[in-house]
Structures are given as structure tokens and as C-alpha cells.
């Protein structure tokens, strides 16, 4: 559905060098990305600020011309065939609006029906579905400029889907949303993805979006892909471990060692200890600990994806 081969985008930046002179410097925003995304996949595309995520998305949607490399979406070349491609993709930019500021939401939708030339019955069916899933009814008559961010974002999602796109590009769709709106958007996207008809490419800084929605995770940094695979593969690759946190009746003896684990933290005057489970099971570690010292409480923590990704971003 989407193919990128050695995709590159360079920007020329002029840097001050003396009173009047400017030196030209080339910045590689995207520096040789190779990716293939199949129909129906849900792919999370993440990376630190400035990594090249949005630039990639703009090249995939035909808004930016690549500096080098090849790209095809739905079998089309995005830039030369932009208007053709526009009929087959949907795009949501979290920081921009594709709705008409002065018009009520339902008029924006009606206008989009004409622009995309969607038959009235199909349009009505899709709108009905979005209205019920995203609770649009209470603000359908409100001008877009008066909508809250969460309401507008639900409107944006609907607008991107009314023409039945094969690929949906989402650029930070949950940015700035409150918890409830985020959950609504995620649930909606999850349901959309479950049908298997729509290919979904999602960039975000909120890793909960990814954990909830995407089986495949592509991490980009400095314009290059540094990880492509499942979230589990990422944990395995970067040695994420589950940890065992225990509240103790009394501090641990100084020479205490729990086989197959590493003691990573001691807090609360020695009453709370955290072990990283390196080469043992949770059951064995718990049994070993309980046998050695009186334990008041226990909890087992799954590895945190944010930690893994932070390590990935900061590693040289």
C-alpha cells in the first residue's frame, strides 16, 4: 500500500556568517528511509521532535516533493498525482484544521461531500456511523471556530473519513486532548483498524496511542529508521525487564542477593526495594524474597515503553 525507497528530504538553511554573508547549510530532515506498509496495517511512526516524522508524512501525502528516493502510495506517485491520491487517502493533522473556520461542522461535511464527489447515500451512511461513534450530534450545528479542541478533533477525524479513504495518515491526532477525548479518539481508531480495510499511519508523542493501536512500531531519529518491528521486539532489543517492587517489614540485610535479579532501587529507609528480573521468573523471585524477609506488599511492573523510547532517543 505504501512503499518508500531511500526516501530523502533536504532543506537548505542559510546561516549567518559575518555581517552580510550567509552560508548555505543543508539539513537532512529525512535521510534515506526504506519502508513498506501493507494494506490494513496500523503503523506507529514515532521519533523525537525534529526527527522527520511530519516531513515523511508530507511527502507521502504529496504536499512536499522528495529530494531523492522513491515513494508510492496506493500505487500512485504522491506529488505528480496529488489530486488523484487525495481521493484515496485521508489526513488528519493534529495542529492544523481542514474544516472551514466560519462554517458549522455539518456544512463543512456537506462541502467535503461535493469536493470528493461522494454519492449522497454513501456520505450519509459514513456520517451516521461517525456521529454515533464520536458523539458529534451536540455540536454539529456549531461553527468550527467555536468548537473545543476535542470536539474539533472529532470533526477532523470524521472529515478525513467521509470519502472512505484506503489510507489514513494521522499526525499527532491526540495532541492537546484531555483524557476522555483521547480515549474516544483511540477507541474510534481501534474500531476503524479492526475492520482491516483502512491502512493507518500514526505519528504521535503519546506512546499510549501506539500501545493501544499499533502492532508495528517504526522509530525514526535524525531522519533514519532506528527500529522497525513490534513493541515486544523493541523491549527485547533494548533489554527492558519487568520489575518487582516490594514493601518490607524491615530493611534488607546488607549481603542479600536474589538469584537472577538485580537490585535497582532502595527507598523509604530501606523498606521499599525494586528488583529488575533479569534471568528468572516472577514466581521464583517472589518466593525467594518472601523466604528471606517478611514482606508487607508486592507489585510487579511491566516495562514502560516510555523509558525504552527515551533510551532510544538519547542513545548516540
Amino acid at each position, binding site marked *: 500500500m505504501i512503499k518508500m525507497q531511500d526516501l530523502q528530504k533536504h*532543506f537548505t538553511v542559510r546561516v549567518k556568517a559575518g555581517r552580510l554573508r550567509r552560508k548555505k547549510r543543508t539539513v537532512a530532515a529525512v535521510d534515506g528511509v526504506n519502508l513498506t506498509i501493507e494494506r490494513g496495517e496500523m503503523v506507529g511512526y514515532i521519533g523525537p*521532535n*525534529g526527527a522527520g516524522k*511530519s516531513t515523511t508524512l*508530507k511527502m507521502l*501525502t*504529496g*504536499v*512536499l*516533493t522528495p529530494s531523492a528516493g522513491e515513494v508510492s502510495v496506493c500505487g500512485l506517485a504522491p*506529488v505528480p498525482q*496529488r*489530486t*488523484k491520491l*487525495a*481521493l*484515496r*487517502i485521508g*489526513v488528519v*493533522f493534529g*495542529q*492544523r*484544521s*481542514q474544516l*472551514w473556520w*466560519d*462554517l458549522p461542522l455539518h*456544512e463543512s461535511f*456537506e*462541502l467535503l461531500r*461535493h*469536493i*470528493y*464527489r*461522494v*454519492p449522497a447515500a*454513501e456520505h450519509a*451512511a*459514513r456520517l451516521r*456511523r461517525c456521529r454515533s461513534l464520536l458523539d458529534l450530534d451536540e455540536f454539529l450545528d456549531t*461553527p468550527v471556530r467555536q468548537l473545543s479542541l476535542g470536539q474539533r478533533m472529532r470533526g477532523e477525524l470524521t472529515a478525513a*473519513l467521509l*470519502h*472512505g*479513504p*484506503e489510507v489514513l495518515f494521522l499526525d499527532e491526532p491526540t495532541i492537546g486532548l484531555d483524557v476522555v477525548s483521547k480515549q474516544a479518539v483511540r477507541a474510534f481508531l481501534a474500531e*476503524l483498524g479492526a*475492520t482491516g*480495510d*483502512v491502512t493507518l499511519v500514526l505519528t504521535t508523542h503519546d506512546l499510549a496511542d501506539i500501545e493501544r493501536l499499533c502492532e508495528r512500531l517504526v522509530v525514526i531519529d535524525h531522519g533514519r529508521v532506528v527500529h522497525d518491528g513490534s513493541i515486544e521486539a523493541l523491549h527485547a532489543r533494548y533489554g527492558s525487564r519487568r520489575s518487582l517492587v516490594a514493601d518490607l517489614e524491615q530493611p534488607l540485610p546488607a549481603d542479600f542477593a536474589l538469584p537472577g535479579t538485580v537490585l535497582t532501587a532502595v527507598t523509604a529507609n530501606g523498606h521499599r526495594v525494586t528488583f529488575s528480573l533479569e534471568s528468572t521468573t516472577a514466581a521464583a523471585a517472589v518466593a525467594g524474597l518472601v523466604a528471606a524477609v517478611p514482606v508487607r506488599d508486592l507489585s510487579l511492573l511491566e516495562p514502560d515503553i516510555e523509558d525504552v523510547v527515551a533510551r532510544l532517543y538519547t542513545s548516540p
Partner: protein
Amino acid sequence: MDQRDASVPTISRISPFRASATTFGALIGSGFRRYATYRQATIAGTFTNIVFGFLRCYVLLAVAEEAVGQRPAGYDAGQLALYVWVGQGLLSVIGIWGWTELADRIRSGDIAADLLRPIAPVTGFLAADLGRALHAMMTRFGPPLLAGAVFFPLHTPARWQTVPLFAVSVILAVIICFGCRYVVNATAYWLQDARGPITLWTLGSGVLGGLYFPLRLFPQEVAVALWVATPLPSLLQTPLDVIAERDGPALQAGLVALQAVWAVVVLALAGLVQRRAERRLVVQGG
């Protein structure tokens, strides 16, 4: 979406031409409704147009009093008054000033949303602008003309073809004005900020479009050169000369034909500028 909806490309059941016309019509409607939202602005703008109409009308009539034969540049008092008051009404119809939407969208990067639609940006913006003009014609054209008719003796068109020609001339003026504004705004693709070119446009279109004074006050060679070499006299001077019947029937129709040529040229230029811009476009912001 429905299992079927998402994967089957939509097949239009009507002819492509009719579909395009429907889309264009819907966009015109959207432009109309967007401007219809701001009623107080419409009222305030109309009031200002009328106040300035009195100012301009008295100045021009004073000039006429002093002129040889009381016909400066070939207009009598009734034609001059009509020139002023129709001009005040047309100002907002052609939308000569104040449109910075395209430049703003380029600067903020929102232009990306326009590029992601299956319709050429020039076409989309043109349709919306025609809707805006239609709204202005229905709300802002009449009141200044009425005020003029109440307080001044206005020339009444004598030829049967004058009013239809004027209607065509106004539509062409709207298209030419849109094209010019589009090109001026599009400089933001290169400059990021189009305020300089827009200021230049505001000055140039007012002086050389025939708003501040009729261009016929210039020496004839200068006026002809302006008409042929720039689209500016086609903005206001031509429709106003057509309705005031300043010239004979042949020249009256000839000026409208010249407008048609300029409309084609300016729209082609806007399309060319847009295509060039897309090749070097940097969409601002993440």
C-alpha cells in the same frame, strides 16, 4: 467505515462535467455562507462606503464645476456621480482590499490542508471568492447606490445593452481582481510574509484601478498604456465607464472584451505561480 465503503473507489454516476459544476457551485455556496456569517461587519462596511462616497462625490463635483465646459475627462456631473456611487458599491464586490487568506495560510502552513483536497487550489479559492462577491453584490452594492440616488442626480443608462454589459464586466472584474490578489498573496510562498506586496497592491490598485480618480484624467496615451499593459483599469475603471456610458457602444463593448483577455491571462498566471510554488514549497510547522 463499512466493510465495503472503504475499499471500493467511488464511481461517479453523473457526467464529469456536471460533477465539476456541482462541486464548483457548492464551493461558491460555501464562500457566500462564510461571508453571510458576519452581518455586523457587512453593515459597518456599507456605512463606511457611503460616508466615503459623499466625500469623493463632492470633491469630483467640485472639480467638474471648475473644469472647461464642466466636463472633466469627458464625464458630465450625472456620470461623475454615478461613477462614484457605483464605484463605492463595487469596492467590496470585487473585494479589492483586505484579502490575505492565502498568504496567511501559507505562512501558518495551513495551505497543506488545501493541497490535500482533490481540487486545484486556484479553482477552490476562485469559487469561494465568487461566492463572496455574490454575497457582497446582494448586500453591499445596493445601499451606496441608493444613497447616491437620493442625494445626487445620477446619470441613467440610455442604451439597452449597458446593464447586461455592466453585469458581464463586473463578473470579469471580480475574476481579474481575484487573480491579482492570488498572485500577490502567493508571493508568501517565497517571502513567507506577503505584507510588502499586499501594501503595494493596495496602493497600486487604488490609484491605477480608477478608484481615487477616473483614469481618463490622465493624458490619453498614459490611460491607454495602463489599460493595455496592466489589468488594473479592468478592476474598476472599465465597469464604471460601462455603466456611466462614457464611451460609444463600440468602445464600451471593446473595454469588456479587453477585460475578458485579462481575466484569462491573470488566471493562467495564478495557476502558473501556484504550480511553481508547489515545487519549492516548504510547509511551515511540524
